[in-house]
């Protein structure tokens, strides 16, 4: 029995005890307090089940807001005293106990019959995407096992919808490529193997007619959440024709004046052959003065890594995975060495506020809005229900009578004679009587 299981047992027994306490205590306030204890126990179990955000919501909303509302109403109505339990239905208690035992028995049978734990969990899918580093294909369609997987991936594309991950079943796939929108049998360029849960970026590179034929390198990226102090970098050598590279820290001016200076520069990566990649994490993200050089001739700077602005130092940031692809851009006879920077934001951990927020605001946007409307309606409804009905005085006869009485008393006080005994009274009430049939 692991520590978590022992903890679960303790908290589970406590939560059941709190529920029984709620059921049996006579005073309503005690019942409410037992229910709060039960909610806190359930929140602890949520924590054990990797639902940290829900545990916090459970304590704040259930044990906090809702139970305060209950306690407030109990106090307001003076319902905390043990009410006179009228035993009108004597058969209710044994029937309830029988039904409860029956229900629990059915649940136990269902659990034994289904064998939930022996069931295999659904195989997690794998994520795959393609980066086009084939300079002969300005825009390429990529095929997995002969089926179109990613269409219209432009050369050196490092951003946009073409570079989103798409899910595939785990397994081994053959990769084919054609020029975009040309209906031809795809040219086979290699084979990739993806395992479940992996996020694989397939970099297609090479140059027909050289010693590096078009081929692929499958880079397994770690895009799970990390601490804010870690920046993840993967450097891929996808150069054609073949050239091994080294990555050096060239200092602020990013220039080697003498071969000696290049030999003494701090080494980030000693040597990286074509089709190889190396993944590493950098502590304390910031900018790096990295340059890519020839592995054998270190003062031959091929590419100075830069940020968004040309000439700036290469930024390493937290909360993402940065894929650096060293490749060749060949347009006619001109060959330019380039470094493509593909940035992938981290995926959030299961049950974290971020992952729940992403689900709520992307996939469950409409239900979320509907729940908001429901809350608004219930707010208005509770106001309407709890509002005391104030009886307004009817307009018409009663108001006029109220006015006429002080008027007669004013006349009485000023003239000294009581107008009510005069024969003027039927005259005053005459117009009222004509108006009466309308009301009745």
């Amino acid at each position, binding site marked *: 029995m692991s520590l*978590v*299981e022992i903890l*679960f047992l303790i908290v*589970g027994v406590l*939560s*059941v005890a709190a*529920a*029984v306490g*709620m*059921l049996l205590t006579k005073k*309503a306030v005690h*019942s409410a307090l037992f*229910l709060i204890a*039960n909610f806190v126990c*359930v929140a602890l*179990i*949520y924590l054990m*089940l990797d*639902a940290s*955000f*829900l545990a916090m*919501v459970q304590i704040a*909303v*259930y044990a906090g*807001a*809702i139970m305060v509302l*209950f306690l407030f*109403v109990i106090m307001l*109505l003076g*319902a905390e005293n043990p*009410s006179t339990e*009228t035993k009108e239905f004597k058969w*209710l*208690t044994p029937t309830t106990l029988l039904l*409860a035992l029956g229900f*629990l028995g059915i*649940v*136990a049978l269902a*659990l034994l019959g289904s064998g*939930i*734990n022996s069931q295999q*969990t*659904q195989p997690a899918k794998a994520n795959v995407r393609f980066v086009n580093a084939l300079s002969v294909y300005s825009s390429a369609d990529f095929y997995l096992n002969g089926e179109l997987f990613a269409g219209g991936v432009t050369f050196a594309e490092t951003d946009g919808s073409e570079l989103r991950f798409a899910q595939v079943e785990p397994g081994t796939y053959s990769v084919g490529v054609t020029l975009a929108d040309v209906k031809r049998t795809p040219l086979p360029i290699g084979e990739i193997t993806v395992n479940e849960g992996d996020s694989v970026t397939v970099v297609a590179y090479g140059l027909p007619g050289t010693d590096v034929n078009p081929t692929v390198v499958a880079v397994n990226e770690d895009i799970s959440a990390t601490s804010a102090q870690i920046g993840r970098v993967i450097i891929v050598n996808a150069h054609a024709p073949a050239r091994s590279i080294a990555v050096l820290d060239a200092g602020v001016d990013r220039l080697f004046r003498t071969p000696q200076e290049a030999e003494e520069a701090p080494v980030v990566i000693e040597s990286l052959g074509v089709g190889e990649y190396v993944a590493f994490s950098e502590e304390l993200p910031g900018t790096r003065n990295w340059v890519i050089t020839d592995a054998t001739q270190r003062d031959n700077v091929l590419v100075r890594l830069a940020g968004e602005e040309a000439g700036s130092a290469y930024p390493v940031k937290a909360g993402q995975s940065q894929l650096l692809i060293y490749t060749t851009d060949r347009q006619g006879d001109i060959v330019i060495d380039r470094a493509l920077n593909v940035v992938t934001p981290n995926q959030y951990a*299961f*049950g974290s506020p971020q992952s*729940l927020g992403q*689900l709520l605001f992307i996939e*469950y946007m409409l*239900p979320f809005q509907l*729940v908001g409307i*429901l*809350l608004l*309606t*219930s*707010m208005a*409804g*509770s106001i309407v*229900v*709890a509002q*005391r009905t104030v009886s307004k005085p009817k307009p018409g006869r009663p108001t006029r009578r109220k006015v006429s009485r002080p008027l007669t008393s004013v006349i009485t006080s000023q003239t000294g004679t009581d107008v009510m005994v005069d024969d003027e009274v039927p005259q005053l009430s005459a117009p009222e009587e004509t108006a009466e049939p309308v009301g009745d």
Partner: protein
Amino acid sequence: MISVESVVVLSAILFTLGAMGVLLRRNAILVFMSVELMLNSANLALVAFAQKWGAADGHVFVFFVITVAAAEVAVGLALIVAIFRLKQSINIDDLHQMEG
């Protein structure tokens, strides 16, 4: 790692206790609190299965259930207050005839 079966058993026990509370207690507020207990046990099962299948959708449903429970409590307690004003009692045995 807690087995999903044990959590479902706990959830069933809590649900039964809640249902017993609804049937046995005569105080309307306590009947309401028992309903909350039942909703909560359903949430527990949802969270357990969400963890079992690795799908966070179960968490979203729990979130919605909590929201609906909050709305239900607001309206229900307003109803109880209104009934108490009318009949000076929240004993459900006094109310079972549904007379004005």
